[in-house]
């Protein structure tokens, strides 16, 4: 193979695309869109993950381990001193959260002199005068991004919600997004946790072995590895898996387009390939030329796709950041960082996709018999073989889905079930349509009708991939849409029950809280003052909130429960009893009546479970115990959270009065409507990304259909021309073409309905449970199905409009050409 042969072969091959611009557009568009959706999702995930890592890596390099309180919560600073005096190289840290205006921020106290050198924050030693960090007024380091978001200038000294003043703010690149890094002593003061620490960072060059740790501190501290510690990454893992799954679905749809486009191109180029082979070009040279062509496409379309993915991610990032912040308190910088890894992953996916899509064409080229006569649309004659193969693959996919269903309840298994069902159903679609066409042909008498159905079968393979993509997009729309709608319904109802009190407030300090409480109890407007103190603990390594409850009809009449013992409220207030959230119950495998050991600030508190309540949207576990027990068992209970029962018409007046009377003693006060709005906002934004991906997928499948029809149009002319010659008018034929495409789309939509419902059910009963720990009631939304059906027909109509219009207006001379040349 000389270089010249290769060059000419390549040029000959490329000439095809010049003559079939629609085909070219399909390949580029399909590959570009698939890459864009995939790399966009990857960019979003990468951005979020990086910021979790940044957040976790404040203290430590990649491999540092930490010491935390064995029973969760904070531990006394003396343990740090004890360990240092025993020669252990540990550095103290205290984390908490503070609010500045409306921004919730993570406060991180570090001790710069002992911080291991591998810690990113340790770099401030090189750049800043660290003595300034802990002497004089000190310094509060924030990422420049966070400073912008707060709308504050360096040097500003904002107040926290407790009315305590921060040291002057200073921008530092290494500071994790959404966090304020201050000296350990400053953090203790700002959080009101004097003498307390939340963790010790162990220098990675001086590890501590557990036996020695026990010798020094008894069982007070527990060693955690670097991976185990990244709480944010753990909490948000399922969120990102969901996103990845949708990204992959979108990629799959794009891939179908490319596959269809390459299939058509191969078929159209068969005569050319044969001619080239007959001229003496070796199969190997042909393959090499085609591979070069493929690389070319990958670079152009993949590159454009990665860029498109970047734009998409940038557009979706604010929503994702907001929902991650609302749900998990994770702070994601809203300016998207370019990252070589997802750029590369996009290109790799593009090349893998292109190679796979072109694979069958390439392998056929290798096996091409040189001397066989040029037979256009040869592979469509193997129609039955094609349908049989589809059937086999469909059965395999469905079998796989079935196997995954019985295999387990993990998130991966749930996705596997959905993926298998989607692919299986998509592969079945051409079979189902072919069956319907055969049936139609048998049932019809008139020749034109019979031709309509018979020719439909001929058209099917060329359109099947686009139709499969449409089916998947429609099913995903029904499935995800149903799940989201169902969630919305459940969530709103649940919020109504859960938020029975009219006013919610948080005092600045426990002393202020007592003052406000005394005042409130004396008001006639206020029917009840309900302390909702909270504490934190850890069960099985999982962060868990403990919230106190008071005997009141606010709870006994309204608080939603999934399951409860008959005398749940009496037991809760009179015995050592606990209500646990659904997530916690699932995670720890607990049921009603089981006993639970809850780590408190003192001895473990053993309580039996009397109720399980839904706690949608909460990534943490939650426990509810009687207020008295919370106050007695948890020395560090907040003591500042309250809700008030007030006559609805008096709500505004009471709130105004409280704000006027107590001013800064109230850190935050909200009425029921505001809280509901906050919660639903978080909810809406959480699914904004999913909805956007869904819509994009649908648009892509519409484009696929359009592109396939456009590509097919030329070949269709060869089929239509004889019918025209036999007397059918062009407009009649065009109408029939349009009707056929719409019929196909309707078929896809019909099959999409059960598939979508199945997907919705698996999302609700499988994915959500595995990912978030809650199970929603399964709802069906017929109005939504109608919508999807109309979307399908609309998409088909739009896609078919241009090719059929062109047919309707085709000059008779054009149609006659079919008979005058080789076609």
């Amino acid at each position, binding site marked *: 193979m000389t270089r010249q042969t290769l060059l000419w072969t390549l040029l000959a091959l490329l000439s095809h695309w010049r003559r079939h611009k629609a085909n070219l557009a399909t390949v580029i568009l399909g590959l570009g869109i698939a890459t864009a959706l995939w790399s966009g999702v990857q960019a979003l995930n990468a951005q979020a993950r990086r910021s979790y890592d940044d957040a976790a890596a404040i203290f430590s390099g990649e491999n540092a381990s930490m010491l935390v309180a064995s029973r969760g919560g904070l531990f006394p600073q003396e343990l740090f001193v004890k360990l240092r005096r025993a*020669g252990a190289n540990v550095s103290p840290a205290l984390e908490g959260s503070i609010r500045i205006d409306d921004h919730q921020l993570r406060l991180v106290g570090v001790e710069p002199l002992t911080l291991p050198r591998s810690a990113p924050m340790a770099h401030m030693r090189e750049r800043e005068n*660290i*003595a300034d960090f802990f002497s004089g007024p000190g310094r509060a380091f924030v990422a420049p991004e966070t400073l912008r978001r707060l709308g504050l200038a360096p040097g500003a000294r904002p107040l926290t919600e407790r009315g305590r003043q921060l040291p002057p703010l200073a921008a530092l690149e290494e500071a994790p997004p959404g966090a304020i890094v201050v000296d350990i002593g400053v953090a203790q003061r700002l959080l009101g946790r004097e003498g307390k620490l939340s963790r010790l960072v162990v220098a990675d060059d001086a590890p501590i072995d557990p036996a020695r740790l026990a010798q020094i501190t008894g069982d007070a501290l527990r060693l955690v590895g670097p991976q185990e510690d990244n709480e944010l990454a753990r909490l948000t893992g399922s969120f990102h898996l969901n996103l990845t799954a949708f990204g992959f679905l979108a990629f799959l749809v794009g891939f179908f387009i490319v596959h269809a486009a390459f299939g058509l191109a191969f078929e159209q180029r068969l005569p050319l390939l044969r001619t080239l082979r007959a001229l003496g070009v070796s199969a190997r040279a042909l393959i090499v030329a085609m591979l070069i062509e493929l690389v070319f496409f990958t670079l152009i379309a993949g590159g454009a796709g990665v860029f498109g993915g970047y734009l998409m991610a940038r557009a979706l990032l604010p929503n994702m950041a907001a929902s991650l912040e609302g749900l998990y308190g994770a702070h994601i910088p809203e300016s998207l960082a370019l990252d070589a890894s997802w750029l590369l992953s996009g290109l790799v996916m593009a090349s893998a996709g292109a190679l796979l899509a072109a694979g069958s064409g390439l392998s056929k080229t290798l096996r091409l018999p040189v001397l066989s006569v040029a037979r256009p649309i040869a592979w469509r004659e193997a129609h039955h073989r094609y349908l049989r193969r589809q059937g086999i693959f469909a059965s395999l996919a469905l079998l796989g889905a079935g196997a995954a269903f019985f295999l387990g309840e993990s998130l991966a298994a749930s996705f596997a079930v959905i993926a298998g069902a989607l692919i299986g159903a998509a592969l079945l679609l051409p079979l189902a349509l072919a069956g319907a066409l055969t049936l139609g042909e048998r049932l019809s008498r008139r020749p034109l009708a019979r031709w309509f159905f018979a020719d439909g079968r001929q058209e099917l393979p060329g359109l099947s991939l686009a139709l499969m993509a449409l089916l998947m997009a429609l099913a995903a729309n029904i499935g995800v849409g149903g799940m989201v709608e169902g969630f919305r319904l459940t969530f709103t109802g649940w919020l109504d029950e859960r938020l029975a009190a009219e006013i919610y407030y948080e005092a600045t300090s426990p002393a202020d809280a007592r003052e406000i409480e005394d005042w409130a109890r004396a008001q006639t407007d206020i029917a009840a003052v309900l302390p909702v103190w909270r504490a934190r603990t850890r069960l099985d390594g999982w962060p868990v909130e403990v919230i106190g409850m008071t005997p009141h009809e606010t709870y006994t009449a309204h608080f939603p429960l999934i399951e409860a013992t008959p005398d749940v409220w009496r037991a809760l207030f009179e015995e050592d009893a606990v209500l646990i959230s659904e997530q916690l119950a699932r995670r720890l495998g607990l049921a009603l009546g089981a006993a639970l050991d809850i780590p408190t600030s003192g001895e473990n508190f053993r309580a039996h479970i009397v109720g399980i309540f839904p706690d949608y949207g909460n990534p943490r576990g939650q426990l509810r115990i009687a207020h008295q027990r919370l106050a007695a068992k948890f020395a560090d209970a907040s003591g500042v959270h309250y809700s008030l029962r007030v006559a609805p018409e008096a709500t505004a007046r009471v709130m105004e009065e409280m704000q006027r009377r107590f001013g800064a003693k109230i850190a935050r006060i909200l009425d029921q409507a505001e809280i509901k709005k906050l919660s639903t906002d978080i909810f809406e934004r959480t699914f904004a990304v999913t909805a956007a991906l869904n819509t994009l997928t649908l648009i892509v499948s519409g484009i696929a259909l359009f592109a396939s029809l456009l590509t097919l149009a030329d070949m269709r002319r060869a089929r239509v021309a004889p019918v025209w010659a036999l007397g059918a008018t062009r407009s009649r034929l065009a109408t029939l073409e349009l009707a056929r495409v719409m019929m196909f789309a309707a078929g896809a939509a019909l099959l999409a309905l059960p598939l979508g419902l199945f997907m919705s059910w698996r999302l609700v009963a499988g994915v959500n449970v595995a990912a978030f720990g809650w199970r929603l009631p399964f709802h069906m939304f017929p109005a939504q199905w109608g919508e999807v059906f109309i979307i399908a027909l609309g998409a088909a109509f739009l896609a078919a409009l241009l090719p059929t219009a062109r047919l309707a207006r085709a000059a008779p001379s054009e149609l006659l050409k079919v008979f005058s040349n080789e076609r």
Partner: protein
Amino acid sequence: MNARAALALLALLCGGTLAQSASEPGFGGLVGAEAPGFALPKPGTPLVFPKDHGAHPDFRIEWWYLTANLKGADGEEYGVQWTLFRYALEPNAARIGWDDRNIWMGHAAATSMASHRFAQKIARGGVGQAGVEAAPFRAFIDDWAFETRDEAPGAGLKRLHIRARGANFSYALDLDADGPLALQGENGFSRKSDEGQASYYYSQPFFRVEGALSLDGRETKVSGRAWMDREWSSQPLGPDQKGWDWFSLHLASGEKLMLYRMRAAKGPLFLFGNWIAPDGSSAPLGRNDISIEPLETTPAAAGREPPTRWRLKVESRGFDVKTRPLNPRSWMGTDTPYWEGPIRIDGSHEGEGYLEMTGY
């Protein structure tokens, strides 16, 4: 004399700017700069014990410092260094908890003919990670300690224990004082420049040492002699002073000799010394009486070339010796690097001691 610890701390605290300033003349000015709000040493102030064994929060910098020349059961010679240094970021630095504004730094080293190992520790004051108590005497940073073995009141610094560990070395030594404390300079008031920089300064050069040393995995029993220095000030260096060469010597006669030479960026050297009799009485040596001249240098890290052989003279005492290091590579690669190691002297007098050189 050990003000280099101050420089090391400054290096640490001022971050990257330090490396530059250390190579420029006048970095001593940072330590010697005006210290508003801090107390300054005044001549004629009597030192009070045991109070002065403890920390002096009114002053900016302060150190507890020990060097030992040891002989191992394996026949090898060894040297050991232990320093605890306090630096106050603000006047009245001693406060409760993390509000304390003292920074503590420890340096420790062990040296043999073939090896020199060192370590550094830094800690904040106020929480119990590092500190000094006057009586019973106790100086500590993390697991390093320099403390009394005798809890009785009035025990002072007579019977002490000292220990430290770092990568590839550790030691634990018992110290017993054979003589009284020696006040340096004018009854403990020690001038450091013609511009008036000064410190309070006393020593205990009469320690007998017994203990164990482990170096590069080899453990051995050791015994020998040690010298302790105590010094506190708020501005120990003149603005133009660039570094110094400091000698502490145990003479075979039982006498002790301290000599030092301050190098200025320009202008004359500032020389000073003290001849300490076996009974602890000390006689200051004037600058014209002393000669301290380098003879030979040894390359150290980063292109530095500290002199490692010296000729020392004290005319009034007929003292004329040459020094040679046990290990010419006794380089302390700490945040602010310097040379510190055991030496021997030969000539008119025989003996051993320690040499410290900064600013090279």
